[in-house]
């Protein structure tokens, strides 16, 4: 049991929890996206830690980090696209007001 | 020791650049001008605007200086390298330069003033325009050196400098480095004419001094980067390496200052359009050509 690995994994867990809190509690679309970014960051920390401490010779781990970073960028791009469209249509990105999918 | 030398080098460079700039703006070569203006800035009253975001207001100039210094830290001035010779040096420069944007955003937001804010946001638009033009030419350079180590990059230019090997990349990188250091014609964030100094507008006294210094260091850093990546770094006959570095850096820096002097300011919307519609295709073309030349 290495303290380094533990610290990294706990950091990841903490960031993940903060991210969940943020994504669920915020009313603003952009803030929700920040929560999601934090969750992904938690995943990133874990990935790097696993690569470094468990499989330093397998570069698929680093590869995975790159893909997650790509996903973060994608999330930003699409999220902001939606935010702009929403802002144009309604004048705000408060998610309390978005109920079009109500069943 | 080495680090100190490099910092000293940078500071001297920054001072010389400031001399050059004052020469260009005032039309008189006056070696003491920057020193006098620095002294006057230190001595003048330091005004803090009403209701600032104090944290950002105070840290922004320092962060700018840090970013510029960090960018320079991985650039070798001689065969023994600079402060650090990272295995990912060419990428690290990008990372450090990205914080120029952060610093300017903070400096724009911090003082709680309209001019600064507009200046900061303008620089964000400018960043989105130029950032690809830094990364993609650097990819071409790294391709030739088959390494991201900056010393390897310099050594790869022993026969032919990159400026001849990939002139297109050099041109794009040069333009982009003008944009990073918000020199004219890309001086939108500080645009003197229409924004009353932009992000600098609310800074007075020593803070403004730090800001100015940071910007000069930034110019020197970028000149160093251009030298390392495209002009063969310290390589050259007869003179010792550090001298070659110094000469090239000064030449590049004065070229950077001169270029903007004769061009009209470019709106950030136009800059965006040109960079994305023309610059990125050209950068890709550069990559393609370099790739083909390497393979042949």
């Amino acid at each position, binding site marked *: 049991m290495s303290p380094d690995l533990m610290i990294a994994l706990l950091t990841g867990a903490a960031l993940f929890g903060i991210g*969940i809190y943020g*994504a*669920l*509690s*915020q*009313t603003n*679309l952009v803030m*929700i996206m920040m929560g999601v970014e934090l969750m992904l960051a938690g995943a990133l920390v874990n990935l790097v830690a696993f690569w470094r401490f468990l499989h330093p010779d397998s570069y698929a781990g680093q590869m995975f980090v790159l893909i997650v970073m790509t996903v973060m960028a994608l999330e930003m791009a699409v999220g902001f696209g939606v935010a702009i469209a929403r802002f144009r249509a309604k004048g705000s990105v408060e*998610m*309390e007001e*978005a*109920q*079009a*999918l*109500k*069943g | 020791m080495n680090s100190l030398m490099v910092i000293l080098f940078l500071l001297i460079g920054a001072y010389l650049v400031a001399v050059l700039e004052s020469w260009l703006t005032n039309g008189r070569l006056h070696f003491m001008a920057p020193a006098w203006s620095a002294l006057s800035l230190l001595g003048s009253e330091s005004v803090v605007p009403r209701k600032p975001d104090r944290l950002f207001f105070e840290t922004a100039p320092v962060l700018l200086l840090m970013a510029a210094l960090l960018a320079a830290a991985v650039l070798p001035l001689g065969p023994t390298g600079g402060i650090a010779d990272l295995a990912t040096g060419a990428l690290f420069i990008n990372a450090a330069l990205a914080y120029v944007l952060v610093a300017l955003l903070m400096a724009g937001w911090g003082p709680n003033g309209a001019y600064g804010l507009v200046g900061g946001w303008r620089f964000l638009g400018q960043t989105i325009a130029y950032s690809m033009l830094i990364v993609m030419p650097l990819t071409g350079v790294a391709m030739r050196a088959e390494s991201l180590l900056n010393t390897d990059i310099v050594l790869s230019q022993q026969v032919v400098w990159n400026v001849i090997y990939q002139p297109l990349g050099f041109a794009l990188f040069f333009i982009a480095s003008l944009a990073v250091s918000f020199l004219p014609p890309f001086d939108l964030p500080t645009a003197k004419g229409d924004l009353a100094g932009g992000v600098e507008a609310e800074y007075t006294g020593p803070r403004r001094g730090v800001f100015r210094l940071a910007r000069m260091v930034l110019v020197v850093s970028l000149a160093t980067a251009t030298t390392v990546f495209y002009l063969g770094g310290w390589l050259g006959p007869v003179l010792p390496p550090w001298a070659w570095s110094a000469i090239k850096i000064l030449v590049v820096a004065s070229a950077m200052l001169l270029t903007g002097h004769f061009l009209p300011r470019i709106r950030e919307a136009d800059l965006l359009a040109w960079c994305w519609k023309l610059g990125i295709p050209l950068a890709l073309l550069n990559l393609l050509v370099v790739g083909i030349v390497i393979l042949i």
Partner: protein
Amino acid sequence: MLALIILAPLAAALLIPLLRRLPAAVAGGGAAVSLLASLNLLASASNAIHPALVLSGLPDMPLRLVSTPITALLSAMVALVASFVLVYAVGYMKADPEKPRFFATMSFFIAAMQALVLAGDWVSLLAAWELIGLSSYLLIGFWYTRRTASMAAMRAFLYTRTADLGLYAAVFVLIAASGSSEIPATLNISGGPAVAVSLLLLVAAMGKSAQVPLQSWLMGAMAGPTPVSALLHSATLVAAGAILLIRAAPMLPPEGLLAIGLVGGVTTVVTGLTALGARDLKRLLAASTSSQYGLMLIAVGAGVPLAALLHLLAHAAIKSSLFLGAGVFQHGRDTTTLDGLRGAGREQPRIFAGFALAALALAGIPPLSGFFSKDAVIAAALASDHALLLGAFALGGTLLTGAYMARALRILWRGEHQVRHITGKAWMGTGLAALVSLALVLGLAFPAVESLVEGPLPKSTAAQIAGLVAALAGLGLGWFVGGKRLLGPLLDQARHGFVIAGGMETWVVRPSLAVARSCEQLEHALYQAVLAVAHPARLLARSHKQIEAYLYNGVVAFGRCNDAAGRATRRNDEQGIDGLIAALVRGTVALGTHIRRLQSGLIHRELVMSGAGMVLILVVVMTSLLAFA
């Protein structure tokens, strides 16, 4: 060679939007190159030369294109039909301003279909499957400004997508069970996985080949341009399902075969009736397509995929020529309703002759191609283990085919005519003539096909005679009696394409209502039975009043007891079973209301719920993993 077949139309599809000039010529060139290549492939296949192309795809799962006798045949068929349809489309689309888009999508579609036909492993088959789904969506919705067209495209896409999940699951099971993605290598699995795979493949084929109950999208797909319908319905999109089953046929276990045969049988009859009641020529043809694919599924279910292949080939030529003919009539009258087309055949006697020949071929009149293939299907059905069932379905389908084709012919021939000039008729006529002649003579090539594929094909004179009689009877009925009278009370249902049979909602709601009703009846009968026992006991007690007080009392007590039991049962029934049903209903309604409230549309609520659902799935997966590890 293999790559050329796919790359030529693909290149055309890429070139057309770039050039935006002479789209028809480019598309035609691509199709012609593809046609030559596939004919060459067929020729080499007949000399037992089978080239294959292996590309590195996923690790350990290379993508491959193979040429087997079946794939070479199908590829040639697709290329032939596609080229003629393109020739026809030159005329049909003459006045359309969006020609480049049309021809580009068409070429892309052809490329995707060739990839599907030639795919040698499940991964590339899956990819091609998706691509034809996409391109058919684009083509059906070609006139996207018309609301019906975009709706129809959406519906076709959703229906086929839903069924595609079957293919995904089947491919997963296949690869997991056999450890290889190569199609022949996966076909030797057996037991439980084989049954599961065959049912999953059936679901996929049901969606693509428009089998009951997923048939309704095909009728809607008529909203696209006619060449699209001709291509979709004959050799490509719809054929994909049948091709899938034909290629997987060696693996199908008896249970799967029976299911396939039954689905095919039901489809051929139901959609045959739909065609008989159709009021629109293109819808009639669409329903007929479903019906014919039902016949093919019967053949697969009977264990003779070769018969299905033959019918597929014949049907491709026939149905495309029928559609092309219908397109000419449509240009003549600007409508496709049968009422509006009354007498349209007389205006263009030559087109009508082609149409009629194709119709007769479809009905199965010798010596046209449809006769041979249908004969093979009927023979296969009669020789199978479930001869009674499948044979009846096959003969019924044949009868109906004759009937609706005769009906269409009669309507087209009878009625006053009006002469109008049709632009681009020469091109359309050329395409039509080529396809019709293909439909006529294809039957002569069947012996060669049989020897090429080397499959067992049952022959029986009885089947020939039965098939011919059924076809002739159908033709006679259709011509002299007409669809309306023939269908009688079914007419209304058939007009709506048996939506009851196809409507997913009705599928769930109806049976549950029926179950509820029968529960009620059962409970009523129980109650009656209990009363009936109690009643005689009471009568008995009353008539023996005088005999013995004890006995009397005892019997009365017994009677009361029974009576009480009866009443108790009744009450129990009323409150118990009735109440149970009512409670169920109430519970469902309440649950619905609650769930409706969950559906708040608020992103944070939904996020919480999806998170909770994810956790639940994770827990289930983890526990099942831990429990079985």
